[in-house]
């Protein structure tokens, strides 16, 4: 098939799925946070609040967009676009699976297979600070300016440890292409332990993974590092003056960053689309997993906590059961099984982001800076030196 047509179809598919996922991520976050705090979360709009993202979107669309008088208009309007464009572009170079054949067409699962994809992602990530700091400056408001300043200082500080932590696993894989990185993690040690980045010999990159996650929290401005927006001291910081869809743009950008960072973490440290279990185990695991959750839904439907659960949970169970069945069809397995592993690992990391938000309080600003320069950076450098030494000793 024509390369252009194929790319357009893939781009439309990925963009659609990504934006829907981002909208539902808000729902997931609210639900998980609610359950961490022993509440139930959104449940009025649609069954289990599943229509909440849609109603949020409608609300934001029809809200009046207030633009305060004191703002610097061109920069004020450009900032949310910069933020959302940079955050959503990085998905273009992320591979979701190996090269597959769909309807007789060979294609890579992912938009563009670039030889320096990791560098491109780092570049887009380093540019993304402009959206936030310009928004803070253009709002022409003390609190917003402080938020913007904090964002730029924080992002510069945490970019450095992040880049240094990413170099260590790259020494093991010898490539900057995310597809080749994932391919370098195929196979198992002793037939059981997967050769993922966090287990890979000669130096398992577990420390580097932890440092990467911490830096990713800071880069995405999430709790415990959400100083740029700190509601109680800065009145939401850089986006105080934004309303309606402009505000939604910052929200989308933040969730887009979370998803991209989690995908990078999955590809570099958690083996990308390579399964956790060897042989047939990796293939049937999706079915077992989905049927297990279907079972949980049925079990809860038997003893409903709320009246409606008796009707909604069996429907969800049926959907999960059917999805598990699809994974058993041999024809679709080469496409769906790698995709499943990739999405499950990414989903787990996204869940970690929400989980941490529910568990940790915010840092103080001096603590944040001190942490970056006196712990993160030296730790990243030491990890890099040890990895480099072991790689140099073990390669012939």
């Amino acid at each position: 098939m024509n390369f252009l047509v194929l790319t357009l179809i893939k781009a439309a598919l990925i963009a659609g799925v990504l934006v829907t996922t981002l909208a539902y991520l808000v729902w997931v976050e609210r639900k998980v946070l609610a359950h961490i705090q022993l509440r139930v979360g959104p449940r009025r709009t649609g069954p289990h609040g599943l229509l909440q993202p849609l109603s949020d979107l409608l609300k934001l669309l029809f809200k009046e967009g207030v633009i305060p008088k004191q703002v610097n208009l061109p920069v004020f309007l450009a900032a949310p676009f910069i933020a959302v464009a940079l955050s959503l572009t990085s998905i273009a170079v992320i591979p979701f699976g190996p090269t597959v054949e769909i309807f007789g067409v060979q294609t890579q699962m992912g938009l563009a297979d670039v030889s320096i994809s990791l560098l491109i992602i780092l570049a887009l990530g380093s540019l993304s600070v402009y959206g936030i700091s310009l928004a803070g400056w253009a709002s022409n408001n003390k609190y917003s300016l402080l938020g913007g300043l904090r964002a730029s200082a924080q992002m510069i500080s945490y970019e450095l440890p992040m880049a240094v932590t990413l170099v260590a696993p790259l020494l093991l894989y010898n490539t900057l292409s995310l597809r080749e990185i994932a391919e370098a993690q195929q196979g198992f040690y002793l037939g059981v332990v997967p050769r993922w980045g966090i287990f890979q010999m000669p130096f398992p990159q577990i420390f580097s993974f932890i440092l990467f996650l911490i830096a990713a929290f800071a880069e995405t401005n999430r709790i415990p590092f959400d100083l740029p927006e700190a509601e109680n001291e800065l009145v939401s910081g850089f986006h105080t003056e934004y309303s309606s869809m402009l505000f939604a743009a910052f929200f989308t950008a933040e969730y887009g960053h979370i998803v991209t960072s989690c995908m990078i973490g999955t590809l570099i440290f958690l083996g990308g689309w390579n399964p956790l279990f060897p042989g047939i185990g990796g293939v049937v695991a999706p079915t077992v997993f989905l049927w297990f959750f279907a079972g949980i839904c049925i079990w809860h439907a038997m003893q409903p906590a709320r009246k409606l659960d008796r009707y909604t949970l069996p429907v969800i169970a049926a959907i999960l059961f059917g999805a598990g069945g699809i994974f058993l069809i041999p024809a679709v397995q080469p496409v769906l099984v790698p995709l499943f592993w990739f999405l499950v690992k990414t989903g787990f990391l996204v869940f970690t982001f929400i989980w941490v938000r529910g568990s940790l309080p915010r840092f103080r600003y001096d603590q944040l800076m001190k942490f970056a320069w006196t712990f993160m950076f030296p730790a990243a450098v030491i990890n890099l030196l040890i990895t480099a030494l072991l790689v140099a000793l073990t390669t012939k």
Partner: protein
Amino acid sequence: MSALIFLIFAFVAIACAINLVVQRHPIVSALSLVGVMCSLAVLYLLLGAEFIAATQVIVYAGAIMVMFLFVIMLLNTGVESKVPGKSLLSKIIGIPVFLVFVGVIAYLIQRHYVNAEAPVIFGNFTGGGPREVGLRLFTQYLLPFETTSILILIAILGAVVLARKELD
């Protein structure tokens, strides 16, 4: 296609560069500089220097310019005020010096690049990946590389000494 992209981004780079000088608000000037850096990165990419292109964006647009922006915001500088009555010197020799500058540039381009034996063809150069750059850097250009790193180390030490709080 490559020529078209080249023309677009060359134009954007020059327009941003002119805007950088013409604008009187520091933030807008800084943003124009970011535009120049990013268009230059695209030009590098067109010439096959992928690694340089990515580094250009990461280092210049993503780190150094953010630092500039940070300082400008921190000082909260407003619009530059225009000094009334330019100095006589700039009025007299401004235009002649500019013309000489343009002439020298035009002469050098004409001399070295227009009738060159091997004209630049987009996509001809493939040695710009990280591997090739790294190999060159650690074999052929090892001495300049190490000298630069020592220079940067000295600069860092100087910054630390200058920024250190007096303890007494």
